[in-house]
């Protein structure tokens, strides 16, 4: 559905002539004339208004009764009075009425000082109440969930939280129980409200009925500083507002950016700030000394790293990930290419993608905006799970489908949380996203699809149904793809984009979900094996991608590894290869906040990494929006700016000097990356700028030659075995495990099975099992999922314990722990019996000798 283009009308409010878009709600339109109408239940983000609280009553000429401004659309020539006697009396009455049951315990209430009920009572209330009857009482405060406390006495029954649960994440968990004056908010069977986006209701509640448990009583609004920042825990890069007191971040709020987050945050982004101030966090440099990591001063650690890197020289490789900024990426590239003479650096798992592919994918004509997801004719979710990979987009996709009728089509390997919202959903064999893209492109072009469909493991009927749905949906189509789809054959996605004619559409295009928060920015800053800054030709050719780096480290060809906020053993596939690679490497220098498994065992020098509130620099959103990070809180412990650490290393190794300030460094980045030309830090301001929209951006040529599809062999079912697919849960992050409030969500390995498979293997829900690919084993609990595709077992990646990264697949066997233990016991028993028999024969022989 194309974006609405409302016409402008003029109306009069309290004697002022005001221009506003037609059909805007009066409560919003009044603001254009600098007039405030008090509201409680109205929140445009929640969808159509419900008029539950009656706070917004105003008088409109020609209408006999007072109207609710939140649900009355402005029309041309409307005459509105918000301060007439009738309106004023009504407003006072509503305030008095809302306070009948309100406990007025502001001094102990966490909302005090930032509470709309306080403000509106002060501004529009009558100042006294005639109600002397007892108020209603509830037990309080109660845990609505481990993250949220509920105080039902304070609730004014505005419905916001319930509407949120039903309309935004559509989890339908919160309801109003009972009726009339007895109503109260709760979950319908009393279970805790645990959901990926539950924290948003704390911010929505206009009173102190819902409060954040980690923030409870930590500070008052007049004791804090607000600091704009950006969450760097996933590629969504939601804009945040940090509450800082005494240089500690105490709370994260949203900073509504309609082009990025739409005013919501996920619970990871909202509560994982706690990981900044925990003891587990690395806050001073460490070196490995006699096999153990030991904290040392900066000089010692820097000297150690510089010496080791000098020895490593051109046999050094580097990986970057996490929330590393563009500037850090730029410096990492300079360190490797210009100082050490190596081009082996990467910021994504898997094999290297060629430069022409990257350039074609970055073509501004193919770039979709985040808000296009909401207004396109159709969105194809290809090989990613928005809820896990870029959570906030899950809400955006639901919004588009619910409010604008966007057609939602899903092609993933694993069942998606969006399936119930989707117009069509198909499942392909694990890891075969590229083949699916080829098959879909072929189907759209009317070419034969059989080979590709077979390689992708889908039925041709399903494929054609999906292709037809795409073709019929309309012209503007957005493909939201996980970057995993580029493994195998990066050309497949471009072929699909071409088959859909995405380059010619304004409201459609490609939107890629990288695996790490600043994946796109790091790539564009030059942290990729075959491209320099700005996807230009690198200063040094012949760089290897991450997987090849692992092989070469394991074989001893490369000897040193520089890790910028990434631990390949934890984050990359084939953990075993990486184990060997890191064990063989003589030097592993890492920037990290937590001692993840690979670093604990193998890092030789560790520099403490900054968290996003401590950082200064820029990051790039997957849709090309360059956003600015500013320092919001002081560095914890001994932490230093990471770019300064890189600059220091470059200098000590004799490289060209780095600009002396973060600002100058950002300017150097904008110069080095041609399509960032024209950006300035001040221009980015708080909202960022999308470079594909800048005039200078057309430095990437359109020339891209499509090659023949490269199809892998179809995956065949094997008897008694299942295919294995992996996914990363939204909660799989060291920050989640380290935050006391979120720790209860830390994922444990679970294997998702279809009911049919479980039956065939005689497994029950929640049974402990061992999954093995013949060499390596992972322990898990069985989870039966109705929507799981038969024949495939899905396991979680990137867990500290039992992560599926170790499994190589494509097939695995699943046995219960009980049977494995029984087998082991049988083996031991047999062994013991054999040993006993042996001793007996020995004893007999001895006895014979004696006689």
């Amino acid at each position, binding site marked *: 559905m194309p974006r609405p283009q409302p016409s402008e009308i003029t109306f009069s409010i309290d004697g002022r002539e005001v221009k506003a878009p037609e059909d805007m709600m009066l409560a919003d339109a009044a603001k254009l004339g600098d007039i405030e109408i008090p509201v409680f239940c109205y929140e445009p983000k929640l969808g159509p208004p419900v008029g539950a609280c009656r706070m917004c009553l105003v008088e409109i000429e020609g209408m006999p009764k007072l109207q609710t401004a939140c649900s009355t659309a402005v029309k041309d020539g409307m005459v509105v009075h918000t301060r007439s006697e009738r309106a004023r009396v009504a407003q006072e009455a509503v305030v008095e009425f809302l306070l009948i049951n309100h406990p007025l*315990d502001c*001094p102990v209430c966490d909302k005090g*000082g930032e509470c709309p009920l306080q403000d509106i009572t002060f501004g529009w209330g009558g100042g006294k109440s005639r109600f002397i009857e007892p108020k209603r009482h509830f037990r309080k*405060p109660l845990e609505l969930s481990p993250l949220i406390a509920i105080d039902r006495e304070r609730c004014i029954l505005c419905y916001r939280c319930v509407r949120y649960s039903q309309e935004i994440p559509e989890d339908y968990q919160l309801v109003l129980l009972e009726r009339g004056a007895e109503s109260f908010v709760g979950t319908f069977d009393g279970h805790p409200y645990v959901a990926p986006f539950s924290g948003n209701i704390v911010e929505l509640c206009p009173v102190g009925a819902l409060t954040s448990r980690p923030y409870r*009583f*930590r500070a*008052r609004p*007049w*004791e804090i500083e607000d600091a704009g920042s950006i969450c760097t825990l996933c590629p969504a890069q939601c804009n945040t507002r940090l509450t800082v007191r005494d240089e500690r971040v105490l709370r994260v709020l949203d900073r509504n950016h309609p082009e990025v987050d739409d005013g919501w945050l996920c619970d990871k982004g909202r509560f994982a700030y706690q990981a900044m101030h925990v003891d587990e966090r690395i806050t001073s440099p460490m070196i490995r000394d006699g096999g153990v990591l030991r904290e040392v001063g900066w000089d010692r650690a820097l000297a150690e790293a510089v010496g080791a890197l000098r020895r490593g020289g051109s046999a050094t490789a580097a990986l970057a990930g996490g929330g590393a900024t563009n500037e850090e990426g730029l410096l990492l590239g300079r360190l490797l290419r210009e100082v050490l003479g190596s081009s082996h650096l990467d910021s994504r798992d898997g094999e290297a993608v060629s430069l022409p592919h990257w350039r074609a994918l970055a073509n501004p004509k193919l770039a979709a905006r985040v808000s296009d997801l909401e207004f396109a004719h159709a969105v194809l979710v290809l090989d990613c799970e928005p809820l896990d990979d870029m959570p906030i987009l899950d809400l955006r996709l639901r919004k588009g489908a619910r409010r604008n009728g966007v057609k939602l089509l899903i092609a993933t390997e694993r069942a998606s949380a969006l399936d119930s919202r989707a117009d069509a959903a198909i499942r392909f064999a694990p890891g075969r996203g590229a083949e699916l893209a080829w098959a879909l492109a072929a189907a759209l072009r009317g070419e034969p699809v059989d080979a590709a469909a077979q390689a992708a493991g889908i039925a041709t009927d399903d494929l054609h149904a999906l292709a037809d749905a795409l073709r019929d949906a309309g012209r503007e189509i957005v493909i939201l793809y996980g970057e995993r789809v580029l493994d195998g054959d990066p050309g497949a996605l471009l072929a699909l984009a071409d088959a859909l004619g995405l380059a010619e559409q304004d409201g459609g295009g490609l939107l890629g979900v990288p695996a790490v928060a600043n994946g796109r920015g790091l790539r564009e800053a030059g942290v990729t094996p075959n491209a320099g800054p700005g996807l230009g030709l690198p200063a040094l050719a012949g760089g290897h991608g991450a997987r090849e780096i692992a092989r070469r480290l394991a074989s001893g060809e490369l000897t040193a590894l520089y890790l910028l906020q990434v631990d390949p053993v934890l984050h990359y596939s084939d953990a075993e290869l990486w184990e060997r690679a890191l064990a063989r490497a003589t030097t592993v220098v890492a920037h990290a906040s937590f001692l993840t498994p690979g670093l604990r065992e193998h890092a030789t020098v560790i520099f403490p990494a900054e968290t996003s509130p401590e950082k200064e620099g820029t990051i790039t959103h997957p849709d090309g929006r360059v956003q600015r990070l500013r320092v919001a809180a002081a560095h914890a412990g001994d932490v230093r700016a990471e770019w300064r650490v890189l600059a220091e290393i470059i200098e000590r190794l004799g490289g060209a000097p780095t600009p002396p300030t973060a600002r100058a460094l950002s300017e150097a980045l904008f110069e080095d990356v041609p399509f960032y030309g024209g950006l300035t830090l001040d221009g980015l301001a708080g909202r960022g700028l999308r470079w594909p929209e800048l005039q200078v951006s057309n430095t990437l040529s359109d020339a891209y030659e499509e090659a023949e599809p490269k199809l892998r062999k179809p995956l065949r079912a094997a008897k008694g075995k299942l295919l294995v697919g992996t996914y990363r849960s939204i909660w799989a992050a060291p920050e989640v495990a380290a935050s006391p409030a979120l720790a209860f969500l830390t994922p444990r390995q679970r294997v998702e099975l279809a009911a049919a498979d479980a039956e065939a293997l005689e497994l029950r829900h929640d049974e402990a099992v061992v999954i093995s690919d013949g060499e390596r084993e992972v322990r898990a609990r069985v989870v039966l999922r109705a929507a799981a595709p038969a024949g495939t077992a899905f396991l979680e990646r990137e867990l500290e314990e039992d992560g599926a990264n170790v499994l190589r697949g494509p097939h695995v066997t699943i046995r219960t722990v009980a049977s494995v233990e029984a087998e082991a016991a049988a083996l031991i028993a047999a062994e013991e019996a054999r040993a006993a028999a042996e001793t007996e024969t020995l004893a007999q022989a001895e006895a014979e000798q004696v006689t």
Partner: protein
Amino acid sequence: MRLAVERWDPGEDQIEVQRAPEPGVAGGAYRAFGETLRGLKTTFARVIEGVHTIQYPEQKVAVYPRFRGRHKLHRFEDSDLEKCVGCSLCAAACPADCIRVVAAENTPELRISAGERYAAVYEINMSRCIFCGYCEVACPFDAITMGHDYELSDYNRGDLIFTKEMLLAEPLDQTPLRAQGE
């Protein structure tokens, strides 16, 4: 060599000073002696009144009951719970910005105050306080009041940050109060 200094011409800015008429001989004498004597009248009157010096610190000045001195935090007399709930309203009211409150949540095992929250940290920086009493007015629970003690000097600025324990404790000496009409 001397530079010829040109005389600066103030031009239109020149103003004329108007003087009062000269007092004359009699007027001059009155100014010199009469006025001085008038002042000395007060001096002599006090001399007759006797000694006013107070032998501080042995002797203390009694203060009025509404005198605003060192603050006190209060407990409930029956339950011994602290009255302060750590709401920070006093900190918001304080014009000198010298109160710091960090609140925490009461638990059934550890109940400090009567409300849901209590002040885990409550500090007043006495070296900044201007003894305006706004904190007392702001407190919704009468948890903080201005006491009568004014002996607050110390050798160290750091010691002038009064902690919750110090503010809850009774001061060592009682400052004498003025009786009514005194």
